């Protein structure tokens, strides 16, 4: 990893956007819509949301859109022609948090183990992350319990930390980051000798990850535990869909007579029909089993199979759960159970 430190003046962000756009890149940045904040294409830096702890949806849609064509097809008499997607547009995600930046590696671990998902991989290759570290956190954040931190550099190409003057301390971390700096070297000045630490939010470690992962395989059979935790769970997909690390998907065809498209759409293991057969047989018939799958997958199976944890501690699932299922609280309970 390259680490080069620079100073990016606050009013230079606008100029940087202009340069990135001139280079043919699309910029996704947090934009407010009512009380919610989404990563959207912005024309100017002034459109960005000013003050946010976390965005409503994660930036995962940039590399794994909620709906995307896997390919298109055209019927020609009895023949079928298949047309693959063209290369995705180069994209810069600006203003994501370190936890979100860390999530790309998790998604990638699924899309590139064994069979290589070229579509995801080229999206990822075309995406650069200019992350802004966290000066504030809330009670739902738990990045430090799952290997991250408010100033963590994992997964970012450039990490910006806002320092006292209001300017950004920029850490240029990868070749992609360097390439962006090369587009506008004049915007990156000599870095001051300031330590970013004092500008970062304090997020205490909230549970012992090692204990949790050790306990989970055994906890699997503790039906009462899962039942108690999930009685109020409504079985929607909110937690999975706001999550930067959830990967489950569905494949669906849509067609108009002669032509059509095979789509990939986000799906959630929390839905009751996720595992259901046509016959009606369902291997996970009740919500407690589906809640267990969510927790086991993220904190046990994932690190067994993919060598990553399936969670970066962004807290979105708990902020957005309509039934106030607080993941952190549930994890603590499992880690601390005797």
């Amino acid at each position, binding site marked *: 990893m390259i680490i080069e430190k620079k100073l990016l003046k606050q009013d230079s962000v606008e100029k940087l956007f202009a340069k990135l756009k001139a280079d043919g890149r699309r910029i996704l940045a947090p934009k407010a819509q*009512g009380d919610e904040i989404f990563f959207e294409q912005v024309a100017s830096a002034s459109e960005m949301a000013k003050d946010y702890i976390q965005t409503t949806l994660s930036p995962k849609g940039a590399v794994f859109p909620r709906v995307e064509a896997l390919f298109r097809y055209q019927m020609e008499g009895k023949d079928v022609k298949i047309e693959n997607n063209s290369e995705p547009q180069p994209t810069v995600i600006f203003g994501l948090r370190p936890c979100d930046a860390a999530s790309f590696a998790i998604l990638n671990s699924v899309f590139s183990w064994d069979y290589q998902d070229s579509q995801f991989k080229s999206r990822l290759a075309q995406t650069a992350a200019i992350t802004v570290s966290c000066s504030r956190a809330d009670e739902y954040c738990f990045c430090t319990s799952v290997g991250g931190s408010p100033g963590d550099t994992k997964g970012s190409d450039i990490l910006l930390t806002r320092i006292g003057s209001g300017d950004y301390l920029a850490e240029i971390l990868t070749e992609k980051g360097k390439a962006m700096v090369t587009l506008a070297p004049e915007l990156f000045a000599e870095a001051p000798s300031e330590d970013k630490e004092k500008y970062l939010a304090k997020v205490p470690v909230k549970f012992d990850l090692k204990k949790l992962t050790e306990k989970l395989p055994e906890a699997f059979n503790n039906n009462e535990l899962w039942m108690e935790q999930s*009685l*109020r769970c409504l079985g929607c997909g909110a937690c999975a869909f706001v999550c930067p690390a959830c990967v489950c998907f*569905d494949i669906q065809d*849509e067609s108009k007579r002669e032509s059509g498209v095979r789509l990939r759409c*986000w799906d959630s293991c929390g839905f009751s029909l996720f595992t259901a057969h046509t016959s009606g047989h369902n291997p996970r018939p009740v919500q407690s089993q589906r809640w267990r799958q969510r927790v086991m997958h993220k904190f046990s199976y994932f690190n067994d199979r993919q060598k990553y944890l399936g969670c970066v501690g962004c807290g979105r699932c708990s902020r957005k759960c309509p039934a106030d299922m607080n993941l952190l609280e549930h994890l603590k309970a499992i880690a601390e159970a005797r």
Partner: protein
Amino acid sequence: MEELRKKARELLTSGAVKVIIGYGPGSGKRVRAVFVRKPEQADLLICDDRCLQNLAVYLTKPEVKALGKAAVVARLPTLRAILQLAAENQLTDGQVVALGISPEGKMTELSQFKAIEEFLAGFSFELSAEEKATLEKLDQMTPEQRWQFWQEQFAKCVRCYGCRASCPLCYCEKCLAECNQPQWIPAASHQIGNLDWHIIRAMHLANRCVNCGDCSRACPVGIPLHLLNQKLAEEVFKQFGARSGMKAAQEYALCNWKLEDRENFIK
């Protein structure tokens, strides 16, 4: 609140019910649904103006049903949901005890549907001035503006079905959204898929929605779905004089035909 806890303790101790579905402390300043099964846990129960979730949604959840007879802490929309569920043959009389909470916070035990009906008869279910004003604002838009407004809202929808999951009247084991022969509603969260989903769900809830607002509260991306349902509820009221959730036995306005129906909506 003390009154509620005392009643809960009593009901559990006597064995009259096996579980109290109520509100308890949640994350930070939030409250959440709790399922109190032991008298000594009754002190968990909270009842204040943060307690908005329509707990009737749990009355049809298999795991909750398996706990045994329930008493549910019920504000007005929850009481209406209970009657509406009864009208749709999802609940039978005596299956559930409602701990009715008046807008002032007073608790009344209502163990029969009839008692709930009588209790509700004492309140008006006209929309509040504020709600009316919001609907009027939408009404005053040109069709193009209104289309634009909803298109922008629906564009955010990720199809998490939080709206459906939180709705006490969306209890269908297999929702139309999941029927694939034919695929009535595209499963994808693109423009057509989202439009179809929301229009169809709104239609399914016309004369069934009890105006609890949980769909909008549940929605992670902040879509004011309740406005669609309120609008349809008002239309049904105008056309048929019917309000949902007022009686344990009532006909569903949209599939009953009566001689005296005004049919000027078919033009």
